[in-house]
């Protein structure tokens, strides 16, 4: 069991969004948080990660490390992708330049290693953020709309990446508005059912 959430309720700005959400994620599982705009997917994911604590009640337990990638990509736009990836704020792991360049090549950004991130296109910036997946060894991934701004090839790469991760015993919880990204492999948590 990598993540165990019981009876979680989410409030934002004095308004209750979700209540009694139960979720347990084990290795090898892919979970998609499903729901209309504004139902509380982002809020729940932030709660599960522990980024926001105010207004989050219930029990959330992690076994092991996890990697959270939110809407904001934690990239400094004046630094290059290499400088940005050299150190991940949330973990102890520091990557070597050659590892980083490999990861950047994998997300098809070879040649952009030393440009300021701010001068990349929307999809390229998202790719830099996703390169973190390759540099982390956390078994649980929490990804908020990771497919946004990616082109078709990018989406395929990300899907393959998640498959590999899951096959290696990891687990992924993600949000996306496109249904059934991973076909029968994935499980849906429909937040509409928990909305207050």
């Amino acid at each position, binding site marked *: 069991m990598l993540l165990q959430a019981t009876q979680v309720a989410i409030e934002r700005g004095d308004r209750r969004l979700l209540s009694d959400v139960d979720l347990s994620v084990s290795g090898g599982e892919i979970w998609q948080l499903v729901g209309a705009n504004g139902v509380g997917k982002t809020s729940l994911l932030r709660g599960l990660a*522990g980024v926001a604590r105010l207004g989050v009640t219930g029990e959330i337990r*992690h076994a092991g490390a996890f990697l959270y990638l939110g809407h904001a990509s934690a990239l*400094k736009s004046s630094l290059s992708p290499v400088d940005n990836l050299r150190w991940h704020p*949330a*973990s102890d792991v520091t990557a070597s330049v050659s590892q980083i360049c490999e990861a950047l090549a994998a997300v098809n950004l070879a040649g952009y290693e030393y440009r300021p991130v701010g001068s990349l296109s929307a999809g390229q910036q998202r790719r830099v953020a996703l390169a973190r997946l390759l540099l982390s060894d956390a078994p649980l991934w929490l990804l908020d709309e990771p497919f946004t701004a990616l082109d078709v090839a990018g989406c395929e790469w990300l899907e393959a990446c998640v498959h590999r991760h899951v096959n290696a015993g990891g687990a992924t919880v993600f949000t996306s508005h496109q249904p059934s990204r991973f076909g029968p492999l994935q499980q849906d948590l429909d937040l509409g059912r928990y909305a207050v």
Partner: protein
Amino acid sequence: MPSDQPLLSLRVVFLRQFLRHGRSIMTSPADVANPLLFFFMVITLFPLGLGPDPTRLAALSHGILWVVALLASLMVSAKLFASDFEDGSLEQLALAPYPLAVTALAEISAHWLATGFLLALLSPLFGVMLGLPDEGLLTLSVSLLLGTVCLTLIGALGSALTVSIRRGGLLLSLLIIPLNVPVLIFGTTAVREAVLGGNPESWLALLGGLALGSLVVAPLAIGAALRVSLDS
């Protein structure tokens, strides 16, 4: 992120974060030059505003230098955590298995080294420009060295408290100016005493006490404030 990996000691975490931030500052010389430039330009305004009479300027110079140092630190620390908050770095830092107080302190230290420390080092130059008597120059430098520690920490607290507010603007200055008053008083008095031949040491000691005190209290408050900002 309660991880299985052996946790690094806080000292290592501090050092690593410090180096990272330091490198990021060093990549843009503008960030280092700007506070100095501000200091320099604002100081040139005073002879223009108060009249160029050298004896009068000299009598006022310690006050002017310190007030301007305070304002410079105000402007610089205003944005200390702003970009971290906007681009999501703060989120990630909050997930790290270390207290935010430690990582924030590391960032603040790097920031201080690039602004307050340099300002203190170069301040005798500005002192000479305003005609501060030579006896005061060393004390000016030392008082700014200790004083900017407090100013930066208090500024960082203000930044942490207001970072999530959309119409923050000047709010930060309003919060921290009153807290900076003792630093200003001890600092100017130290320099004045040095110029008048009194003993500045006791005032410098007070400043040092303040610096130590804020080194203990401020990081905790900053950590709590950053958490609040993430939660809001």
